[in-house]
């Protein structure tokens, strides 16, 4: 009989069932009567089969809606022995839900399970083994092993494929049991099964087990050989769509050892791009994107593969909206990694009127990424259209996008600005505000070019009610104060409601008023005073107060300097905004199609720690081009010198993110632009995470403290005024002795502890950047010997050898005293080694001062990283000196070189502090107490001979420490300050 005939038989029957069901099944959902459980119990024990079945149905319905029917457990289990398959399935479903709550009674079901696993009908065997794995009760698990072993070798593929998944279930309950019983090997054997579905399920189970593995044997399961991968790729052709996804996802974890292999894999995976299932397509894209990293980017093969990728990605956009969303999030990543793939396909990202909002927002994002001078006209016309839509978020994003276009494509900036002006004319509140925010960005990219629009902006002043828009407007007024006649009035009107503004607006307002004052000092004095007093006296926010104080001091000490600082030329914002950090991007590329790629976050960020071996495991990274091949690239990177740390693993040709933050950008950040203008924030963030692991030294922050301390009319006048005057008075040694009176042997008491403290290791080179080589390190000083302690770990699959290390020129001439002694490093091995240093190397002043750029070479590549030398590592043993020498040196250094720092408060008294500092070669020359305030006079000599004199003031009641430094070389102050903080904090 043909199928259509047999279907014909089923159809009327199905209709019958449905109509019959209409009168019966849905009623189970409505019963909420009292005594229901009791009635059910009676029915479950009824003599009549059909009645029992009805009762079980009712139980399941109650379970679905969340009622607790666990008390019926024994009665339901009694129905299990029935030979009716439908009833059996229902009982099993009940068991899976409640077995855990009634473990002692669940054991009653074991016999039936074991018997069912032997049933002649494979469907029943499979059902039993499927269910038993879901019952997480220890007593039952123990009985599971034997039937499972049999089922793994069952003659029927349907049973085997079910058993394969059951191994993963069991592993989740008891991983050790799975290993002991040899199920892992049995599972591996299934990979060679003749049936494609068995293979696919075995692959899925193995992937899951090795992802959450706690032991090495399980983790090693995924270390597949090329041969096996080859077999799996063959099985790909015969699997169901889902099986194909399992296999592709597993293959994506494999990194081939040779280029030919990678190329061959790509060739075999690419037919999948034509599959109707989007998951198959995306997983294939993932495998290909990963393998492409290994190949020569300019080869014909790579170029033609890239071409092949674009059409399938575009096709995904004609699927259902949810898949479109997943695809768009992934395309967003792919476009950042390889912009070429979709650059011709701009139009498919045009927003359709009926697209759901989440699709619209994502499309807009990609549209901007693909914008270039060639297509800007089309894009701009679209964006203008979008800016008149209904959804507020979407409209805002569209307006912002217009601004981004202007910043990205200079030739179109003018058109963008006029478009924005048109939009402002619509007077739609949020459009106006958003437009003002982006116009501010445009001003920052093209200063002094479009100020003619300021008039129009000012007309809309009253309608701005969002902080970001207000702050932007205030920034514009301050920046162009000289061209806005009534700038003072405008700012004054803002100042009236100062207290009610958000911090961002307050900060901006303060800065803008100061700018205005510096530009038009004559008629705005009152205004600036009002603003400063509001910021310093009325405000609770420390940032605001601090900024108020800097300005105050700056203006009162040196208006010219103030002008230089506040009106300094600002760095232009870069054109590419909100790019993902390159390492994260690489990791996400390895997760294409998965949730991580949808959230744009690494899995660890949203997956619970529980049972997630994945979290502990090294994050996924793209493979790099193989050593032999990559020689040229490595040489190129080496040629680029120490500056370019980011480009080591990235695709050549991608502009490297500037890694070490420049002083200007920090100043710019602090003084000027608080709004997340995008560019600076993103760049700064990337820089912070990509460069040294220490926080970049906040130069201005330090200066700030000194500004505060310096001219303040407080009692702490610069150090020994009395001493100085006394010395000048001529009474010489006596008065000196007087001044330093009471300094005793106590000072030296703490000498000789000697060990110092060892700072924790820092990661200098993460494994993703080091192609598997991870370097942690720290600086140590043992007596006179300065050394660098390195811990190298090999996370790669192969042995690493041929290590060598070299330093770039640095501020203190640090250089390795001997070559790096390193034996070859086996995979997963880690070794700690001590590299003695001297200071005879070439000297070049670095910025930040203490930066040390290091190159480490091995058989794979040359890697560059930068670290910060802690200043105390440079303090030498020769710092001690005579009191008199100290005093004369102090006098010799000009007073303007003196700087004061607040160190905060610590529990130690003066002596302990002195001892602690001594162990770091900070020598206390003298100690003195004035009105119960302890003063320590200390000296430090750096490796290059620079002397730093210090006065450490300790107020016992509050334990507040104040440090005054004096040296001929003020640049080293921040470092010394850091060192003091580090020592005192222990």
């Amino acid at each position, binding site marked *: 009989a*043909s*199928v259509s005939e047999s*279907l014909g038989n*089923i159809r009327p*029957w*199905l209709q019958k069932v*449905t109509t019959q069901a209409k009168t019966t*099944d*849905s009623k189970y*959902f409505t019963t909420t009567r009292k005594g229901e459980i009791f009635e059910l119990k009676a029915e479950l024990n009824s003599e009549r089969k059909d009645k029992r079945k009805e009762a079980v149905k009712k139980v*399941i319905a109650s*379970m679905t809606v*969340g009622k607790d029917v666990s008390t019926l457990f024994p009665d339901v289990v009694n129905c299990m022995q029935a030979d009716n398959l439908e*009833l059996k399935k229902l009982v099993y479903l009940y068991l899976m*839900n409640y077995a855990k709550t009634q473990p002692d009674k669940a054991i009653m079901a074991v016999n039936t399970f074991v018997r069912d696993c032997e049933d*002649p*009908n*494979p*469907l029943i065997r499979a059902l039993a083994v*499927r269910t038993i*794995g879901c019952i*997480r009760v220890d007593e039952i698990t123990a009985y599971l092993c034997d039937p499972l072993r049999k089922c793994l070798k069952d003659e029927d*593929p*349907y049973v085997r494929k079910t058993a394969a*998944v059951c191994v993963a279930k069991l592993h989740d309950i008891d991983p050790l049991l799975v290993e002991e019983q040899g199920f892992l090997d049995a599972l591996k054997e299934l990979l060679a099964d003749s049936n*494609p*579905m068995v293979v696919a*399920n075995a692959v899925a189970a193995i992937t899951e087990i090795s992802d959450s593995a706690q032991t090495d044997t399980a983790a090693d399961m995924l270390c597949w050989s090329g041969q096996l991968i080859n077999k799996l790729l063959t099985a790909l*052709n015969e699997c169901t769509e*889902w099986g194909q996804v399992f296999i592709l*996802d597993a293959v994506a974890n494999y990194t081939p050892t040779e280029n030919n292999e990678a190329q061959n894999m790509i060739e075999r995976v690419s*037919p*999948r791009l*034509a599959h*109707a299932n*989007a*998951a198959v397509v*995306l997983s294939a894209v993932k495998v290909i994107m990963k393998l492409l990293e290994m190949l020569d980017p300019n080869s014909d093969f790579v170029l033609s593969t890239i071409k092949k990728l674009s*059409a399938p990605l*575009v*096709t995904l956009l004609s699927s259902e909206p949810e*898949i479109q969303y997943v*695809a768009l999030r992934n395309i967003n990543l792919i476009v950042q990694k390889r912009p070429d793939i979709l650059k011709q396909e701009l*139009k*498919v990202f045009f927003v*359709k009127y009926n697209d759901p*909002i*989440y699709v619209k927002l994502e499309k807009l994002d990609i549209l901007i990424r693909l914008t270039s001078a060639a297509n800007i006209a089309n894009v701009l016309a*679209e964006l203008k*259209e979008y800016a*008149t839509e209904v959804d507020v978020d979407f409209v805002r994003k569209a307006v912002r996008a217009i601004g981004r276009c202007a910043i990205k494509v200079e030739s179109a900036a003018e058109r963008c600005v006029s478009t924005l002006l048109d939009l402002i004319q619509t007077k739609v509140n949020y459009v106006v505000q958003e437009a003002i925010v982006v116009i501010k960005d445009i001003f920052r990219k093209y200063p002094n070019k479009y100020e003619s629009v300021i008039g129009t902006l000012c007309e809309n002043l009253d309608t701005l009610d969002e902080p970001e828009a207000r702050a932007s407007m205030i920034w514009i007024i301050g920046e162009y104060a000289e061209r806005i006649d009534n700038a003072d009035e405008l700012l004054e009107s803002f100042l009236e409601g100062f207290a009610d503004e958000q911090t961002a607006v307050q900060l901006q307002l303060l800065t803008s008023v100061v700018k205005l004052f510096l530009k038009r000092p004559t008629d705005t004095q009152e205004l600036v005073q009002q603003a400063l007093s509001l910021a310093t006296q009325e405000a609770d926010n420390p940032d605001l107060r601090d900024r108020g104080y800097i300005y105050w001091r700056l203006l009162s000490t040196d208006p010219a300097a103030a002008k230089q600082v506040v009106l300094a030329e600002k760095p232009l914002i870069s054109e590419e905004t909100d790019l993902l950090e390159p390492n994260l991007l690489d990791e996400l590329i390895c*997760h294409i*199609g998965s*949730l*991580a790629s*949808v*959230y744009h976050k690494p*899995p660890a960020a*949203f*997956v619970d720690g529980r049972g997630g071996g994945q979290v502990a495991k090294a994050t996924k990274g793209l493979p790099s081009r193989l050593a032999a091949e990559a020689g040229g690239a490595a040489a190129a990177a080496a040629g680029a010198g120490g500056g370019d740390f980011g480009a080591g693993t990235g695709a050549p040709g991608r502009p490297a993110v500037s890694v070490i933050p420049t002083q200007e950008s920090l100043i710019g950040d602090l003084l000027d632009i608080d709004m997340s203008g995008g560019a600076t924030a993103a760049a700064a963030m990337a820089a912070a995470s990509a460069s040294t692991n220490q926080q970049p030294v906040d130069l201005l922050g330090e200066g700030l403290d000194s500004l505060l301390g310096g001219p303040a009319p407080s009692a702490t006048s610069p150090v020994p005024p009395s001493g100085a005057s006394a010395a000048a008075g001529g009474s010489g040694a006596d008065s000196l002795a007087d001044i330093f009176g009471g300094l005793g042997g106590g000072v030296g008491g703490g000498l000789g502890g000697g060990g110092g403290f060892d700072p924790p290791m820092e990661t200098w080179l993460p494994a993703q950047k080091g192609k598997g080589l991870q370097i942690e390190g720290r600086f140590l000083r043992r007596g006179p010997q300065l050394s660098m302690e390195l811990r190298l770990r090999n996370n790669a699959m192969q042995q690493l050898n041929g290590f060598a290390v070299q330093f770039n020129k640095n501020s203190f001439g640090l250089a390795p005293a001997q070559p790096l002694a390193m034996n070859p490093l086996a995979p997963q091995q880690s070794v700690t080694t001590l590299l003695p240093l001297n200071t005879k190397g070439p000297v070049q002043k670095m910025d930040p001062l203490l930066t040390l750029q290091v190159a480490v070479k091995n058989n794979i590549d040359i890697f560059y990283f930068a670290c910060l030398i802690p200043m105390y590592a440079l303090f030498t043993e020769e710092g001690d000196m005579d009191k008199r020498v100290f005093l004369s040196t102090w006098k010799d250094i000009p007073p303007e070189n003196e700087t004061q720092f607040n160190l905060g408060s610590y529990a130690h008294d003066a002596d302990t502090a002195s001892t602690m500092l001594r162990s770091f070669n900070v020598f206390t020359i003298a100690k003195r107490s004035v009105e119960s305030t302890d003063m320590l006079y200390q000296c430090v000599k750096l490796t290059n001979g620079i002397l730093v004199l210090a006065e450490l003031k300790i107020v016992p009641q509050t334990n507040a420490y104040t440090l005054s430094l004096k040296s001929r070389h003020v640049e080293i102050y921040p470092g010394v300050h850091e060192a003091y903080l580090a020592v005192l904090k222990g």
Partner: protein
Amino acid sequence: MIGGLFVYNHKGEVLISRVYRDDIGRNAVDAFRVNVIHARQQVRSPVTNIAHTSFFHIKRSNIWICAAAKKNVNAALVFQFLYKMVEVMGNYFGKINEDNIKNNFVLIYELLDEIMDYGYPQNTDTGILKTYITQQGIKSQTKEETTKITNQVTGQIAWRREGIKYRRNELFLDVIESVNLLMSPQGQVLSAHVSGRVQMKSFLSGMPECKFGINDKIVVDSKRQEPGATSGGGNLGGGGKAGHIAIDDCQFHQCVKLSKFDTEHAISFIPPDGEFELMRYRTTKDISLPFRVIPLVREIGRTKMEVKVVVKSNFKPSLLAQKVEVRIPTPLNTSGVQVICMKGKARYKASDNAIVWKIKRMGGMKEWQLSAEIDMLSATDKAKKWTRPPISMNFEVPFAPSGFKVRYLKVFESKLNYSDHDVIKWVRYIGKSGLYETRC
């Protein structure tokens, strides 16, 4: 992988709840209801993360279907599975609505048990599922029968069973294309593409090998070994040059041997029995747009608007378009509309905020016009700004706007005694409107 599947009605009451993994608890069911179904604002994403659990949802009429997962699952796979699950349920009991789900909940649980194991999708082919999930229970199946079933469920050719016989071997091919267009008011094509599918209905005996030929440029070129062949050829409704079209991308049914397509550009397969979608394709070049809409909107003061719309048909005069419908959106504060049209019927539908103009039949190379006067209530400032949605069109034409042509479909069945010539074949082309919009 997927931790649990939940089905809710529009109120957020649970209709089906199937937990596959231990890491998804009962509270997950409530978390989704509270945070998504009962959330005040519109859904902003089909994926929601609540307390380290990710929820994927789709909606069918007012039923929410949701998958929950704790791990970093394959998101594309989850959504594809949800669609498939809806399709399977639809094949079993028709429309997805609350009544049908409640009435069939036992069946649904049985299906969910079969199509997914421990969060991993298994065989989801309805044709196969129907052979053993029947709600009748498997009573008297012989060993051979069950083996046949299990082999089919897991087998290589999971989509066809052995031993099918027909007295008359017959097959039907429908080429169904939907034309998508976005046009600017000035008549510039902003984006246009055709997404087409080839729907096949086969009634063939045995295990027939089929070979399918189309006029795709690459396929044709690779066949002739000489790129840019210049042979002419019948041209249906306009379309590609020299009878070949450039297909941007195509996707095939499970049964098509993809590796063979990749290497030889040959589409060969053993078809499932009955109806299925053989391939899907997409083209963007040389599309012959069947219609053009020329809008003219004039606002006269704050309370009056004039709309003039011209529709031009752009295909052979001998062909007839059917079910032509033009939707002209009107402002929300419309109080009255006067419409005049030359052909067809036009009505203002207040509930849709649109003038709907229906034309039953329209020949090629015609040009018809509608004009309307719209009166509006005087707009208060509070009334939302009206943003002129695009004018959309629906239609059906008897040709493939992409120029797609079936060149051959050959059937080989070596074991049975019928040949390609004995098979009766039918081919039909239908062009439909997808999103066919003109901004105004």
